[in-house]
């Protein structure tokens, strides 16, 4: 393909994907009246939309809820995922391959099969309207196990055995030898679990009805659809922008990791 044409197409594509976000960011500073107009910049900058958001919903608290949920889920998925991945690659025990096949099977079952029975289980445990109900069902992640296992396979077994001969416990081998050698895989698995959990919205909508325990995507979604925004566009866009911003910043800082990690999840997951 000719170079000038390629650049025109690439720049056109960039505009299509980035311009809506830029427009949205600027629209949150416009007076409500102006949002429907085509001008990019506000004629008069105002924080009215943000004031309305903070006045009507505890969005700061929902941000903290999301943060707590996603941090516990991600660290747990990495910890238990690497324990399982280590057992699958570096320890010989009966039933190991069967166990691994079971995990592969769980990945083939669409979540919609489990949705209702899992919800009724959470109700039975009394975990609705709590962060526990958002955290515990997702503390283990099959994709994380797969990615970590794949990486552990490349670590020479001799190295592990040498450590065993030196009297190293399996725990110490995992945390002081295997982990430092698997930073890329831990990053990949961590990003996949983090993004998936941060953006999850159906499960919180099912399990949490009390504003105090809502996650941020849930709160913003219900603010928009539930009439809290009084069908004003400014506050909805402001809430949405606040929801998107942390991920956008994280993405721009670590874009290479994000892209390769999520591509990995598509290829292996």
């Amino acid at each position: 393909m000719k170079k000038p044409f390629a650049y025109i197409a690439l720049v056109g594509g960039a505009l299509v994907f980035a311009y809506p976000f830029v427009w949205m960011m600027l629209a949150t500073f416009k007076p409500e009246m102006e949002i429907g107009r085509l001008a990019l910049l506000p004629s008069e900058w105002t924080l009215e939309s943000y004031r309305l958001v903070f006045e009507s919903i505890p969005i700061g608290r929902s941000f903290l809820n999301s943060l707590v949920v996603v941090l516990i889920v991600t660290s747990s998925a990495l910890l238990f995922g690497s324990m399982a991945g280590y057992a699958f690659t570096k320890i010989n025990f009966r039933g190991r391959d069967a166990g691994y096949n079971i995990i592969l099977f769980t990945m083939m079952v669409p979540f919609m099969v489990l949705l209702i029975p899992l919800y009724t289980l959470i109700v039975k445990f009394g975990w609705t309207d709590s962060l526990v109900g958002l955290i515990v069902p997702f503390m283990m992640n099959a994709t994380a196990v797969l990615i970590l296992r794949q990486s552990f396979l490349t670590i020479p077994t001799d190295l592990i055995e040498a450590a065993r001969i030196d009297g190293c416990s399996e725990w110490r081998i995992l945390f002081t030898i295997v982990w430092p050698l698997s930073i890329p895989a831990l990053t990949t698995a961590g990003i996949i679990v983090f993004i998936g959990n941060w953006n999850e919205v159906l499960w919180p909508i099912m399990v949490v009805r009390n504003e105090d325990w809502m996650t941020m995507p849930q709160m913003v979604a219900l603010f928009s659809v539930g009439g809290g925004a009084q069908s004003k566009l400014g506050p909805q866009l402001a809430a949405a922008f606040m929801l998107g911003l942390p991920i956008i910043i994280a993405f721009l800082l670590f874009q290479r990791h994000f892209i390769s990690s999520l591509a990995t999840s598509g290829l292996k997951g």
Partner: protein
Amino acid sequence: MSEPVGHRPQTRREKSISALKRALGTSGGSRRAVSDPGRMGYVFSAPYFFHLALFFGYPLLFALILVFHRWDIVTPMEFIGLRNISRLLQDDLFFRAIRNTGFFLVIHIPLQIIVALFFAELLNAKLKGRSFFRTVYFLPVVVSGVVVAILFQQLFAFETGYINGVISALGGDRVPWLVSPAWAMPSIALMATWKNVGFYVILFLTGLQNIPDSMYEVAYLEGATTWQRWTQVTLPLLNPMLVTVVVLSTIGGFSLFIEPYLLTGGGPLSSTLSALLYIYNQAFYFNHMGYAAALGIFFALIIFVVVLLQRRFVEEDIY
């Protein structure tokens, strides 16, 4: 592939190691460290499988029980035999949701493949600034679907929306994006493509970069035109990735929830009612837990069949 290197020799080596230790008279502590691994395998994988049994195994079995019951989660379950299934087979909305998903996929998948291939091909040329473009295209992928849906609620609005604003400024007629039953699902498919296509650009780019240059050289020496090189070399070698993309998009299409939930509530006239939205409504508006579970299983079976057919079809089609 699942066997680590040296599966058998390892046990033999372990034996010789313990023999060595016995000869050296090493303490019991390190003997434990050598013979323990087998037991530690269970210790290390136990938390995962305990969790799996409780939050995967149990719900899976319970789903199969729920199918035969009527249950509003408050009063006791009532066994109703196959009534949920017979009801499902006569449920117009169930078939509506399947047709809607099919309609969504028919627009979304080809559009996504064409756009993603186009940009992947551009980015595969060693142009300056390609990592910048890659980043920009990927941006909507990482952002929550809630953000994208709220953004498009404005962009798609009939009177005040940005897109119609541009169209009418250029002298065109306003498009009833989300308000007409004919346009609502295509609009959502368009939005989903905008959100996801960056992901598939990367997948195709990976696929393109895995094609060895020598293949193109051979095609060049054979005197193939650009188009022939594309259809004879690129596409066949990209086939595995194409299958992956089609399958992932299909699963994604069946997981459509937050977009119709936020933008249309499944309307107008059920034209954007998705599988998950219908399950959600049955469970949480009507408290039909048994029926919702039956719907979940049926939609999953449909995904399974569709994906199997796609694998077959796509594989045969290209070769």
